[in-house]
């Protein structure tokens, strides 16, 4: 595997034009050449630099998993299906205003509001659903704004572009709500701090979301437009298995689609993604199979642990143990995603020893490919 940093043209030929791009936004908005527009990363002009930060931070260019794990956790990349963890639990908000709008337990909204209130952060980069139902990234600076971001949107959104767009000399203390690919990109940035972008030290907290796949904004939005009266839609949901459907909650009732119909719009890159539980964040949050209204929460770092403690102490979050069956299922699903991804990667590279962007220890690679 080629491990050196390259230029934006190679980013295009290796990632963007080959269906590997996750639309994380790490490459966009940091320079005048790469921007994101309607679900695509567009190169507006040729850059002549032979090494670019666009290539360096991309979560789909070569990533030494051990090295970046050291950066965040101080240990090599965990062989555990869920990655490096301190604690796994379930939680839900005690604030009715939050749970009303939340997708599941409102844990993300609660944690962010708390972090803001305590002055631990002064803003959060997150997504909210715009009027036409596409996700849009924004900078939330108080609890009310954070609440606007509650609820899931299943389409990919270049959230990290918003980080790049902040003034170079800004000294916000930031939280970022990230998909697994975005958390990975942020970790690469922590390892090689960006030049001419806002300081990565400003990022105090990364809350990662569980993800099995994301939908392409372009194709899926067209599907939504053709099949729904969008202004009437209040919320989307993909309930956990065995439901196998995509729900759109409207003012006149719920409209459901078979999941296979929606799966068509999965971004091709998701087939090559190993990370289901956002392994490189401070706190990862997802749903709980079979238990409505709660979140599965994985604490990974000291920062995450401290915030969770505070949330519990101040009575903002109600918590409980994740039932062993759920934990087993979660691990199984996470492992399955890793194995499937590696299998697809090897199929694509044609060589068991070429894992494209994934730099794993041979030991772990063999285990997962077995």
């Amino acid at each position, binding site marked *: 595997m080629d491990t050196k940093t390259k230029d934006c043209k190679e980013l295009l030929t290796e990632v963007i034009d080959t269906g590997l791009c996750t639309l994380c936004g790490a490459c966009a908005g*940091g320079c005048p050449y790469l921007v994101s527009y309607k679900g695509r990363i567009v190169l*507006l*002009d040729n850059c002549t630099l032979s090494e670019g930060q666009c290539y360096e931070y991309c979560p789909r260019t070569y990533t030494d998993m051990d090295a970046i794990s050291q950066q965040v956790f101080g240990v090599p990349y965990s062989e555990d299906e869920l990655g490096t963890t301190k604690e796994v639990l379930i939680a839900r908000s005690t604030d009715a205003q939050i749970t009303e709008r939340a997708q599941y337990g409102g844990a993300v909204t609660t944690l962010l509001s708390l972090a803001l209130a305590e002055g631990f952060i002064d803003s959060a980069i997150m997504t909210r659903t715009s009027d036409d139902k596409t996700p849009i990234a924004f900078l939330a600076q108080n609890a009310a704004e954070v609440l606007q971001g509650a609820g899931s949107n299943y389409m990919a959104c270049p959230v990290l572009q918003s980080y790049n767009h902040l003034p170079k000399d800004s000294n916000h203390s930031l939280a970022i709500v990230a998909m697994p690919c975005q958390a990975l990109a942020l970790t690469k940035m922590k390892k090689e701090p960006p030049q001419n972008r806002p300081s990565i030290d400003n990022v105090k907290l990364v809350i990662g979301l569980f993800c099995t796949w994301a939908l392409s904004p372009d194709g899926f939005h067209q599907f939504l437009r053709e099949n729904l009266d969008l202004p009437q839609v209040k919320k989307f949901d993909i309930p956990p298995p065995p439901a196998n459907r995509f729900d759109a909650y409207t003012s006149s009732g719920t409209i459901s689609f078979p999941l296979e119909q929606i799966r068509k719009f999965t971004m091709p890159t998701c087939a090559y993604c190993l990370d289901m539980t956002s392994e490189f964040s401070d706190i990862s949050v997802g749903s709980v199979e079979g238990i409505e209204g709660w979140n599965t929460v994985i604490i990974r770092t000291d920062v995450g642990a401290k915030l969770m403690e505070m949330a519990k102490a101040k009575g903002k979050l109600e918590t409980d143990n994740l039932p062993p069956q759920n934990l087993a299922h979660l691990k199984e699903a996470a492992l399955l995603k890793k194995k499937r991804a590696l299998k697809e990667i090897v199929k694509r590279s044609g060589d068991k020893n070429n894992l494209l962007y994934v730099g794993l220890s041979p030991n772990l690679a063999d285990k997962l490919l077995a």
Partner: protein
Amino acid sequence: MASIDIDAPGTSQLFIGNEAIARGALEAGIGFAAAYPGTPSSEIMGSLASIAKKMGIYAEWSINEKVAMEAAAGASFAGIRALASMKQNGVNVISDFLANLVMTGIGKAGLVLVSCDDPSAISSSNEQDTRPLAKWLDIPLVEPGSFQEAKDMTKWLFDLAEEIGTICILRSVTRIAHARGNVKLGKLPKKEQKAYFDQIHDLRNLMPTKFMTVPSALRHAFAHLKLDKARETFESSPFNYYLGPDKAELLIITCGSCWLYSQDAVKALKVEDKVGILKLGTLWPLPEKLIEEHLNKSRNILFVEEIDPFLERSVMEMVANLPEGSRRPTFYGKRSGHMNAYGELNPDLVIKAIASILSVGYQPRDIEYAKKAEETAKSYVPERMMTFCAGCPHRATFWAVKNALKLDGRDGLVTGDIGCYAMALGPAGFFQVRTMHCMGAGTGVASGLGKLGQFGFDQPVLAVVGDSTFYHATIPALINGIYNQSNFVLMILDNNATAMTGFQPHPGTGMTAMGEPTKVVSMEALCRSLGVHVEICDPFDLENSTETLLKMIADGSGPRVVIMRRECELVRGRKEKPPYKVHIDPDKCIGEACGCDSLCTRVFHCPGLIWDKKTGKSKIDEVICTGCGVCADICPQGAIIKEAA
């Protein structure tokens, strides 16, 4: 310095060729002049228009050359001497009218067409010779070989046109039109002119109808008779003459600017005793007897003429017709490769040809000196790139176009046209323009592309056109697009001037050639009256322009119009002060680093921005910067700062 209407007969003035032509027309007593701007002809109308009112004549910038020629013909039909002037491409545009005018003949008053060719296409889309057109359409054509001749021939040509009853052409080239030389002035006429369309038939036109082309075959025969008459006159014209020995080793047959080059060449080689020059001023029909006479002077004939081997082939045709046993000289010229068949000529090229034919050595200067001089001078300063002026709205427009097409992502293309904005073929306009032909072609080509949907074509098409070009030639193509339901966006760059040729007014500017205010023909009102959706943007508002273009491109039905409206900076700059004072904060400028890579100097290419290699940062050239402030909006680091002036 002197205006062309200076009343000082017998004195010598320093005129450019075009001024000399204009003066010749004045001395001929013209009353009517019409033209469309075109380098290198524009100064003819420019200088006539500036003194028209004073001199009691009428001069107009017409909407295009076709109308200019037709309007001038109208004046001739009504007994007023008239002139139409244009560049070589204009002659293409009027060719259908010319072909028919030759059949109908002209009125009692002389009608002259002046065509200025641009060898090497220094300021043109193509390189083209007007002279073969005269042969093709049976029109007498002359070419001046000096500035004095430019005046004298123009004056005389009106007499000739009246004598034989047909339009006559004076052909010139850039190096006469735009160069300056001595012109001895003649008298200016002081008679009143009365226009009247005489309904009684003219006895010179043998058919009892006026200005009709039928019966065409017969009128064609009459056109040939007129040429015969012209030929007779040409045989003894003072514009044809010979300089050189009775018997020469080489005879040069030449015309126009090439006569001047040939003289220079013969003098430089010091072969005045070996080489004779037959300078022709009356080129079509050929003065065959005169030429035949001079062919006897030498076995070797070299043709020196700009662009096409017109004289070369015409003389060869003539020689082929000579009686059995006549001497056949050896011909040198473009056919033999001694003169280049493309690109403009100059004295050194003629020197080379003569030296090669006569096997004469030539050393203009000491060899050691030459080596030293050439080596030290070589690549001291690299070529500067062609670009839009500082502050030009087109730069901002094409920036928005580039971004919009890239963001749109469907491989959209731009069809181009004629004007300053044609430079968008290159780095000046970020290589956006993909086609360039003639006036109005961009929209015509777009109209065709916009109908290819049934063949799977789905690339957005953007036709770009200037304001003057819009009136000149674009309207029929736009109407075609509406009528045939073609999908394209027409982007009109309205900088309120015919800029490339010298800021002449046009129907959208509200001003005539003679400086009189007039009705504005509103382009947006015109387009809207055709039922077309029109958006008007300020190109300096990059965000809005890009957004608007994206929207217009995305909606794919029928023609849509976007007008990018902002006055030409050179025109604005003469009237007003710069709107902003612009400077670059060196602390914020990151230069070549990742996050910029010298965007402003390397990609944007405004000449007001300079890259300082020593400091690794950009800076503003205060002499050149016009304070438009657009660069401040593209700097990714906010290092370019604009402050209201």
